[in-house]
């Protein structure tokens, strides 16, 4: 079965431009609960591989090196913070169609007032084994 990584960045979805810190506590709880329920559902389906959230742009660092001199380390946040990766899920599914279905659920996570945030979810297939030659 193919594995897919479903990536989310900090870009607010079409349904939500308000940063989460300005949501009501109930809306935040509902959003987090939604994520847990989705992960449990993926485990129950035998599709779950991994789900991780990444620490925020404030802690992000960029490292550049020529392999000789000391590396250049830049501290975040960066102007393009919205493009930074916020978190990802890895799923092991029957088909791309199923991966798209899961991505759609993630995108429709509830935001303020329970309205789906419609955040864009990037879907990437993880490289697997080569096919048999013969």
């Amino acid at each position: 079965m193919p594995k897919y990584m479903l990536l989310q960045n900090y870009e607010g979805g079409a349904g939500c431009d308000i940063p989460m810190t300005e949501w009501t506590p109930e809306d935040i709880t509902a959003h987090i609960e939604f994520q847990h329920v989705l992960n449990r559902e993926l485990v129950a389906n035998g599709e779950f591989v991994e789900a991780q959230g990444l620490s925020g742009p404030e802690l992000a660092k960029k490292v550049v090196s020529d392999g000789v001199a000391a590396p250049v380390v830049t501290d975040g946040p960066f102007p393009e913070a919205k493009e930074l990766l916020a978190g990802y899920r890895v799923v092991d599914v029957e088909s791309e169609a199923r991966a798209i279905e899961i991505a759609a659920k993630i995108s429709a996570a509830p935001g303020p007032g329970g309205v789906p945030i419609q955040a864009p979810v990037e879907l990437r297939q993880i490289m697997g084994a080569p096919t048999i030659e013969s």
Partner: protein
Amino acid sequence: MSTEPRVEDLLRALAPQVLGVLVRRYGDFTAAEDAVQEALLAAATHWPDGGVPDNPRGWLIQAAVRKLTDQYRSDQARRRREDVAALREPPAGDVPDRDDTLVLLFLCCHPALTPASAVALTLRAVGGLTTAEIANAFLVPEATMAQRISRAKLKIKSSGEPFRMPGDAERAGRLRSVLHVLYLIFNEGYASSVGDDLQRTELAAEAIRLARLAHRMLPADGEVAGLLALMLLTDARRAARTNAEGGLVPLAEQDRRLWDRELIREGVALVTAAVARGTAGSMGEYQAQAAIAAAHDIALRVEDTDWPQILGLYGILERMTGNPMVSLNRAVAAAMVHGPRAGLDLLDAVADRLAGHYRLDAVRGHLLELAGETGAAVECYRAAAARTTSLPEQQYLTTQAARLHTGQSR
């Protein structure tokens, strides 16, 4: 006292036999399968130090029955009392000496299951692997694999399939499912044997073991023999298939001294006998694939390859399956017999059905290179590299494009 690998081999061989006994006696595949797993784990813990009991099969049956009884007792509230009462009776001393491994194999490869669930369930119930081992092999968490297996068991339960060999009417179709599942297990292990992925290469060995088992139980079936031969003839090339850096080495460039002659001898004998037993025109898909693998394997040098024979076999396989991937391979064979142009013409005929598939571009790149059309070949290799979902293949195709682009010879 036995050494550890022998205990493991013994447990794997006994696992389906013990499970068969429990299912026959209690009729509950789902619970029996869990109980046998626990008994296997207990044996794997105690036997290596405490020694293998005189009657290992009886020991496992007793242990599994005990686990099953415990399980039912803890579920007592949800069960009718007489079921539990029946279970309290001590297990009969005489266990019928029948081997239900084949029945189990058919059950676990039930067509109602998705291929991935059938693979997982077969490895556990017939192969005797633990959930953790299967999860490791497929690179998913144990909890995920446990769910996959338990859902597969529920599906079998709800299918109402009786515990016996499928009847004659559906036998052939069901056997196809079994062979397909074994082939998938082999493919999963062999294909990923790039680099040092040992956990997964064990899957290829396990698939061969299960295919041997099936062949022993169905010795007259040509396709079972064909599949086993195909696995052996493919696995024989394992050592030559990757270079020191873990990169893929194509068949034509492999160091054939590294091929396993013993496996080749066995595979060739199997497929030859299977084809000879069949009537004209009755050759099955796996036999044809094995015959092609054999033709490659018996060529001591790549230039000794009998391409006309391989081309003929791909023609048979193509008519049999209608699979466009087979057509790609036939195009390569045609190029070797009649020149690259003939191969490219055949590709054009299947291009529509494979549009956007990296294999089409990879093969076209190869044939264009043979035809001396370097620029077009580079484009095809690049397109293929951009669309493959396999890292070793991407590296190989990228290197091909770069090699031609910079004008280097092989």
